[in-house]
């Protein structure tokens, strides 16, 4: 019996992080400082925080790419590693060479490698699953195309399709909305709805606070330490957002604006909300009406 089948018997995944601390060197300040949180099965969580808050580090620790000095990650109540195939991780797109001579289908099939084991090649059934996942993301027509032909949004969808063929119980997406077109963003959000119906737990790192507020069940506010974790209405309060984003945050008439284009290091000076250099992101606590239409931030470019 494969680990996947075991995991399927257990059912949708429950994720627990206990006292996680990670530093990149013995002298370095902790990149993650004593994080503890619990994600019930099927929950959709947005992880938000300024640049350098440790969002990517947290994800890498959760899939075992980085080893924390303290704490542990439990999936289904078991230490990480017992559920080989049930966590899928989609890194930021820049982490691979998109000029590599492989087709879209080749890349998606890579998600099946773990269940194939050594020496076996993907078969007809694997191809069928891969094509179905590509169709779900609206890019099955591109299956035979070289990956170098794709736009940023299409690349993101290929990465997502590759995560889907792993048939994960927990899906970790690192900045899936950074630099993608609106069509791709809506497709991804639609997919997240479909995954919720399948009770797949989804954790997304994002710069887009409005998206986090409107489309997610829970928000985890991170700046090396866990500052808040709960429903968007409770987390997106002025004092919490200011605690996470420091001088990047500006509160105007009950609307919290965060300017991702400002460097995160604290310094004095006037707060430029929309000075033409970049667009601030804003988070509106539900129930509060902004005078102006909040502009979605394009940070992380």
């Amino acid at each position, binding site marked *: 019996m494969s680990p996947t089948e075991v995991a399927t018997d257990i059912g949708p995944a429950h994720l627990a992080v206990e006292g996680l601390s990670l530093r990149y060197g013995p002298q370095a300040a902790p990149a993650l400082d004593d994080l503890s949180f619990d994600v019930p099965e099927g929950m959709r969580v947005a992880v938000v925080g300024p640049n350098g808050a440790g969002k990517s580090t947290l994800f890498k620790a959760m899939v075992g790419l980085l080893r924390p000095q303290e704490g542990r990650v439990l999936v289904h109540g078991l230490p990480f590693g017992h559920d080989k195939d049930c966590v899928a991780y989609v890194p930021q797109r820049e982490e691979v060479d998109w000029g590599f001579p492989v087709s879209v289908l080749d890349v998606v099939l890579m998600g099946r490698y*773990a269940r194939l084991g050594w020496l076996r090649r993907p078969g007809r059934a694997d191809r069928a699953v891969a094509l179905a996942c590509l169709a779900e993301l609206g890019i099955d027509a591109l299956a035979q195309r070289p990956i170098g032909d794709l736009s940023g949004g299409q690349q993101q969808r290929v990465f997502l399709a590759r995560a889907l063929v792993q048939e994960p119980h927990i899906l970790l997406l690192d900045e899936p909305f950074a630099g993608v077109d609106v069509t791709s963003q809506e497709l991804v959000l639609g997919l997240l709805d479909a995954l919720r119906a399948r009770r797949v737990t989804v954790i997304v790192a994002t710069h887009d606070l409005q998206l986090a507020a409107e489309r997610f069940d829970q928000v985890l506010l991170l700046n090396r330490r866990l500052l808040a974790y709960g429903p968007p209405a409770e987390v997106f309060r002025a004092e919490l957002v200011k605690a996470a984003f420091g001088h990047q945050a500006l509160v105007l008439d009950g609307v919290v604006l965060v300017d991702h284009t400002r460097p995160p290091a604290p310094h004095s000076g006037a707060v430029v909300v929309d000075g033409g250099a970049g667009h601030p992101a804003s988070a509106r606590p539900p129930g509060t009406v902004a005078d102006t239409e909040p502009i979605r931030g394009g940070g992380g470019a």
Partner: protein
Amino acid sequence: MMPGIAILDWLSEPLRYGFMQRGLLASVLVGVVCAVIGCYVVLRGMAFLGDAMAHAILPGVAVAYLWGANLLLGAAVAAVAVALLIGAVTRQGRVKEDTAIGILFAGALSLGVALISSTGSYAVDLSHILFGNVLGVARGDLLLIGVLGTVVIGTIALLYKELLLVSFDPVLAATLRLPVERLRILILLLLAVTIVASLPAVGVGLVAAMLVTPPATASLLTRRLPTMMVISAALGAVSGFSGLYLSYYLNVASGAAVVLVATGIFGAVYLLHPRSGWLRSRA
């Protein structure tokens, strides 16, 4: 005389000699093996590493020479040692990778030259090791090239999907629990084995060209890795074959002739290319 018969004569004349038959077989085999593993060298950006590794095995060859042992055996021992050393130094990340390779490469090359120069027949032997002597390939060498080449191509075929994944996306490979570090070392070892097998034909100085040039040409012609490997292997074989004939008729050094053919094909493909971009390939 009919032109067809003239060509046949032209082709068959060198084959009357046993050393030419062996040389032709050796250079075609080396051309193919280098061209296939060379696809990974090109895609992983290991060209400098391949060249450095080739030069860094010189001390092993020199020691074997001084002790009267088999030169290829000395090369093999040195190549494996160098592969593991480069793997270890580059993993730590305290010295930049290309700097570490540069240091190892120059140091080992100097050690090799120093050892060989301490013997009497420095110039002749060194030139054979540096640039190959494909016409001096013995039966035993040919057998060794065949066995090592089969090991390299067989491993690449068996572990195709693992090597592809670890080269394209080591992060996914790690989350799928593939032994990324061991696979990286395996690629270095395959490279070392290939270089040893290539020594009699093209020498340490020219093996890097056979590792890089045919795959680079193939990468201009296709955007699928399996197709790239096949085209690259064909180009390697053609270079090995026609280079040796050129060497016979123009009386130039065989290793150099083989590399010049490969370089000429690359230049032609690059220049005749429709755009500076890629040719479309649906293969």
